[in-house]
């Protein structure tokens, strides 16, 4: 096969060259670059020569530890409590900055939980990375199934022969056509804490009982708000893919099911859903990948805040690489993200394989 393709087809290769070249320069090369840079201490601009540091970047980013804190006790051995009655603990920095624990040097508290009187504290050398990782995973876990389910629901609704159904198809698809940056800007106004549309509507619906809430300013609601917007924005795209899948199911199968006395739900369960298997696999993988790449919404709406509650992997990769000029740090995150997405895609493929 090699002979004809490579030798007698010079014109063909010439035609392919521009596209192939662009892909090579902007996708394939950076991909391998990222692996290499993550093993160095490369900075965007630096007078010092680049050094090979091995897996140091990964160690700095991924190292985690759990330390146990015993409550402070007074001279009699009784636990010292604050005004609310909670036991008081020594500060975490008494461990992370202590010469007695060189292995915890420079680590900071990520989160803690109580077991009995003792507190267990998870400390990490790169807390922001871990927050970004958990936020991203949370985003994927919630957005992927919700968006897929909503999109399927919409696809089922518009897969009917009704007058004017195309109007609905267009409406549902519209947010997809608008740039995510514009959408994010608009939703910043909607989520505004002062007189945002959402607060106004909620206030109106509750006859003024709803006081208003700064959706993006509260660490508890910021990520959820971005999830809701993201689901809304891309649901139309996946709806169209579901719709394409629905239309490949032969109408006679539905007729056969109707003759056999199948109810709507049974028809969905026995005819529609099995017929959508391949579409479901595709949608699941596409949404998962898109969700992992969450960036623009964060960049426009919250910049990772408040209190790092909306940090994500890609946002951190960009923030480190260009914001902090730490190219090697950004590359390390990219590689971790790549391995994560690859693993999840392989697992999904395995779970949804043809049996």
């Amino acid at each position, binding site marked *: 096969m090699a002979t004809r393709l490579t030798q007698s087809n010079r014109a063909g290769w010439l035609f392919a060259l521009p596209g192939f070249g662009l892909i090579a320069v902007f996708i394939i090369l950076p991909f391998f670059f990222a692996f290499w840079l993550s093993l160095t201490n490369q900075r965007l601009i630096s007078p010092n020569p680049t050094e090979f540091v091995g897996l140091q970047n990964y160690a700095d980013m991924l190292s985690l530890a759990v330390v146990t804190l015993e409550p402070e006790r007074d001279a009699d051995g009784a636990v010292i409590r604050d005004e609310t009655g909670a036991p008081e603990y020594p500060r975490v920095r008494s461990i992370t900055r202590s010469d007695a624990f060189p292995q915890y040097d420079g680590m900071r508290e990520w989160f803690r939980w109580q077991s009995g009187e003792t507190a267990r504290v998870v400390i990490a050398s790169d807390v922001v990375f871990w927050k970004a990782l958990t936020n991203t995973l949370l985003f994927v876990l919630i957005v992927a199934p919700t968006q897929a389910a909503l999109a399927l629901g919409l696809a089922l609704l518009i897969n009917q022969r009704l007058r004017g159904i195309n109007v609905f198809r267009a409406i549902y698809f519209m947010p997809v056509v608008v740039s995510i940056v514009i959408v994010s800007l608009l939703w910043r106004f909607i989520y505004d804490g002062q007189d945002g549309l959402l607060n106004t509507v909620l206030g109106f619906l509750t006859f003024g009982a709803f006081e208003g809430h700064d959706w993006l300013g509260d660490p508890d609601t910021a990520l959820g708000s971005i999830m809701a917007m993201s689901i809304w924005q891309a649901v139309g795209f996946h709806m169209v893919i579901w719709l394409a899948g629905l239309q490949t199911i*032969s109408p*006679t*199968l539905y*007729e*056969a*099911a*109707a*003759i*056999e*006395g*199948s*109810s709507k739900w*049974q028809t969905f369960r*026995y*005819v529609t859903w*099995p*017929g959508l*298997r391949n579409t479901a696999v595709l949608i699941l993988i596409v949404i998962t990948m898109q969700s992992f790449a969450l960036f623009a919404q964060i960049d426009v709406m919250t910049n990772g805040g408040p209190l790092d509650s909306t940090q994500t992997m890609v946002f951190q990769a960009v923030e480190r690489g260009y914001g902090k000029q730490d190219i090697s740090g950004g590359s390390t995150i990219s590689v971790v993200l790549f391995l994560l997405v690859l693993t999840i895609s392989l697992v999904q493929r395995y779970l949804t394989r043809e049996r």
Partner: protein
Amino acid sequence: MANVNLSNVTKRFGAVDVIKGVDIDIDDGEFTVFVGPSGCGKSTLLRMVAGLEDITSGELRIGGRVVNDLQPKERGVGMVFQSYAIFPHMTVRENIGFGLTIARAGKAEKNAKVEEAARILQMENLLDRRPSQLSGGQRQRVAIGRAIVRNPSVFLFDEPLSNLDAALRMDMRMEIGKLHKQLGATMIYVTHDQVEAMTLADKIVVLKEGRVMQVGAPMDLYHRPANLFVAGFLGAPSMNFLDVEVIDVNGDEARVGNAALDPIVVRTAGRAIAKGSKAVLGVRPQYLAPVEPGAGMLHGKVRIAERLGSETVVDLALRDGTPLIAAFGEDKVFEDGQPVDLRFDGASAHLFPREA
């Protein structure tokens, strides 16, 4: 149990009349075939009986009950589709048992019925296969099995053999015939293939452009077609039609002839044929016999002859240029261009008034 009556049933798609007032009575246990060329509305009519298409006007009764507005599942019908419509992700067993699954039948009952159906259709060994592992004929058996298993009072077949190859089609045709004898259920069968219609039917309904052309037993229709359409549609090769002049009418008989046909006396079968008028004489190719030149009443030349072994089909041009097909029940050699004389029995010919 389940006779099916259609009275003045019509169907309209927008401005198009597809079924234009159809009356058909089907007795319990009868095998009825709807036959006609494509676009005649036969499938639409069947789908109206099934409940897959609305009935625009008229009345449909199954087992004496008006079912116009009932859902398909409430009509007690089972249906077999041309494209099989079996579920690709289910095994044969699950496909056959689908109706019982839907009705939430018990496992034991389901197994027993599925196996009974598989036994009737001789496919017990295929139960655990998937449709992709089956041939076309086997898939159609699965579809029939799915219909049998719920024990419907009326079976509907929508061109079930059209997707099968010729040899398999004949096997399956006989299977379906046997199945009807075995189950004794009312069956309505749609086809465009007149051989299927002739061999399977107790009663044939010939349709054309949404109207019933003739209803009757196969041999009735074959030997006593009510009109030119039925005469031409049933029988293969199809009946020859000759434009003739009516020379004389005498009671139930008429003397007809034309430039290529020496005058012959044929039956008018009660049709209004006027002396001196133009008429159409229909003669089946099988009723023509070759005779010595000068001894026959039709004179022509061979254009092409097809030898099938048991039969020889000859395409002739008559003296006045009219084409004519003759089928002789023996192997016979004809040269192209060879003059041939033919004769036939006037009693086997059909005379129709010339349609305006």
